[in-house]
């Protein structure tokens, strides 16, 4: 078992390394930070441009592979380089922003997954009843909605609610916290600000997982082992909980690693549109600023998260399926 996990881990580490390298090389080949200096008036002296490009290791005169080598040396020492155009350390920026993103991601993922699994189970158990039909239509609608549109709709609804309540700050539409508040008011405001982004992120996941959970649950409901469980004297509820849901969760666990990339993308939109200063916003801003080092760092962060979710799903898989543990 441990051997299996270690092997998976090493495989993931190699993938993360190569994925980050590819992101760096793509960014370094397509971004041209030197263009930022071209249209300045008065023109920036050439020596200054050279110097600042060298500082961020983005001088187009230097061959791409040499720049990559330098960048790699820094990364292996735990240094992601300098931002552009503001010459600040990427590391400290990431330290600050990753916590913001992780909070949003963790909360949204946990709530969304749990809600989705519950919806799927109920839908399957009461197949073709009202709840099943309603959740199916709901999931179809959510899955057909681009993340951007969903966020804009959630914000429109939020603005409408505020209007009805009569307090424009009842459900804050943007921002993560209000630094003018203190004490309990600060924290309650912060909690209110979490609501809309978390709902947005959670809804997508709930829609995804409810569909798959319903499908696998329906397969399990017709299985022999469930009938056996009933035959040996378990109540319907006991049989469903102990043998049904657990078995139906197994395929979902592998699916989790697949969808995590989509969740991350959803988080990019959520952060940017709700004005959260997290990694997603950092990615969009870095690309707009033609900031190679920051973009590569966000790619690395993303790849590491996908790695973690992959490992987590491996562990959960082993925990749920005894056959994996036996081998």
């Amino acid at each position, binding site marked *: 078992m441990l051997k299996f996990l270690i092997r998976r881990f090493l495989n993931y580490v190699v*993938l*993360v390394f*190569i*994925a980050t390298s*590819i*992101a760096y090389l*793509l*960014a370094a080949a*397509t*971004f*041209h930070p030197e263009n930022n200096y071209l249209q300045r008036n008065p023109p920036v002296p050439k020596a200054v441009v050279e110097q600042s490009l060298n500082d961020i290791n983005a001088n187009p005169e230097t061959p791409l592979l040499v720049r990559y080598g330098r960048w790699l040396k820094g990364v292996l020492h735990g240094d992601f380089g300098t931002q552009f155009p503001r010459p600040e350390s990427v590391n400290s920026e990431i330290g600050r922003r990753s916590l913001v993103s992780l909070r949003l991601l963790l909360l949204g993922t946990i709530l969304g997954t749990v809600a989705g699994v519950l919806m799927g189970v109920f839908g399957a158990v009461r197949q073709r009843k009202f709840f099943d039909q309603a959740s199916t239509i709901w999931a*179809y*609608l959510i*899955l*057909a*909605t*681009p*993340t*951007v*549109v969903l966020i*804009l*709709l959630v*914000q*429109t609804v939020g*603005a409408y609610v505020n209007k009805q309540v009569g307090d424009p700050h009842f459900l804050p*539409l943007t921002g993560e916290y209000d630094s003018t508040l203190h004490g309990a008011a600060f924290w309650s405001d912060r909690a209110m600000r979490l609501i809309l982004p978390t709902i947005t992120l959670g809804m*997508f996941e709930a829609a*995804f997982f409810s*569909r*798959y959970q*319903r*499908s696998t649950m*329906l*397969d399990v409901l017709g299985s022999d082992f469930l009938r056996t469980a009933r035959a040996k004297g378990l109540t319907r509820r006991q049989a469903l909980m102990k043998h049904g849901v657990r078995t139906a969760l197994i*395929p979902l666990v592998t*699916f989790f690693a*697949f*969808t995590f*990339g*989509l969740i*991350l*993308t959803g988080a*990019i*939109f959520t952060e*940017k*549109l709700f004005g959260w200063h997290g990694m997603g916003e950092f*990615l*969009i801003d870095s*690309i*707009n600023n*033609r900031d190679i080092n920051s*973009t590569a760092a*966000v*790619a690395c962060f*993303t*790849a590491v998260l*996908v*790695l973690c979710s992959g490992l987590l799903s491996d562990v959960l898989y082993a925990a749920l399926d005894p056959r994996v543990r036996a081998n």
Partner: protein
Amino acid sequence: MGTPQNVFEVDPSTDTPAAPVSELGAAPTKAVGRARLIARRFFRSRSGVLGVAMLGTIVIVAIVGPWLSKWTIDENDFAHILTGPGIGGHVLGTDSAGRDILVRTLYGLRKSLIIGLCAALITTTIAAIAGSCAGFFGKWVDVGIVWVIDLLLVLPSFLILAILSPILSGKTWLWLVLLLSIFGWMITGRVVRGMTLSLREREYVHAARFMGVPNRTIITRHLLPNMASLLIVDVTINVSFAILAESGLSFFGFGVQPPDVSLGTVLQENQTNVTAYPFTLLPACFALIFTVLSVNLIGDALRDAIDPTSGASRL
């Protein structure tokens, strides 16, 4: 967003049997061709009919609509800026530059539909070629392609496309279609590979190989036609995926570039007005939702019609 749906749907039993020509000789009932059979099953399902009706309406409106309006796409009506629906001859109102929202949305819808269709066709073609080569040739070809698939799944395609977006500046939307396809084929490729692995061991493939039929012919004549049903369903899934991806990228300025208009750029132009003037955005929002919804409905109904035994019928 619909692509991961096929992860679990490697169903090797979807061979296309030859048209059931009445084998028992004088069968009293008329033999039904496979295409007719699928069509009949498809139109018997409520979601299939609904999807076709919705998509048909959307396509017709997108093609005909712009001609019926007296406004053109870039025409500024400075007398009416951010006015609501129905004022000054603007059916759905105007945006912050005085442009007619209905006309812009319809032009955007056109572009989004074209991008979705083109990208889906190219994506499925790449997936079919890469997947069948990986499964058929095995060895290092297989290792290489599977490895590329794993790698591209570690980095979300949105991230790669966003990083590559500077390439797009000043270029036509055809480049976007190409990029969307290059980074969107992985999951389908996996499914095709899985099916090829099982088809490869069939007698008729062995027979073809022993007769000295070249590999290319085996793939195009014997392997891909047997996956046709999967590939057709996959095109519909990829249409919705491409439309969703395009709107997201364009929203941040990483997709369709200014002179061109897509639903994503219409959203982007009006996003600052979302809370104060929701009418500027809602048409594009609903156009996107209904387009993707109808394509998804068609895809699901098609899958059920082609393979009624697949578990997906309950999805």
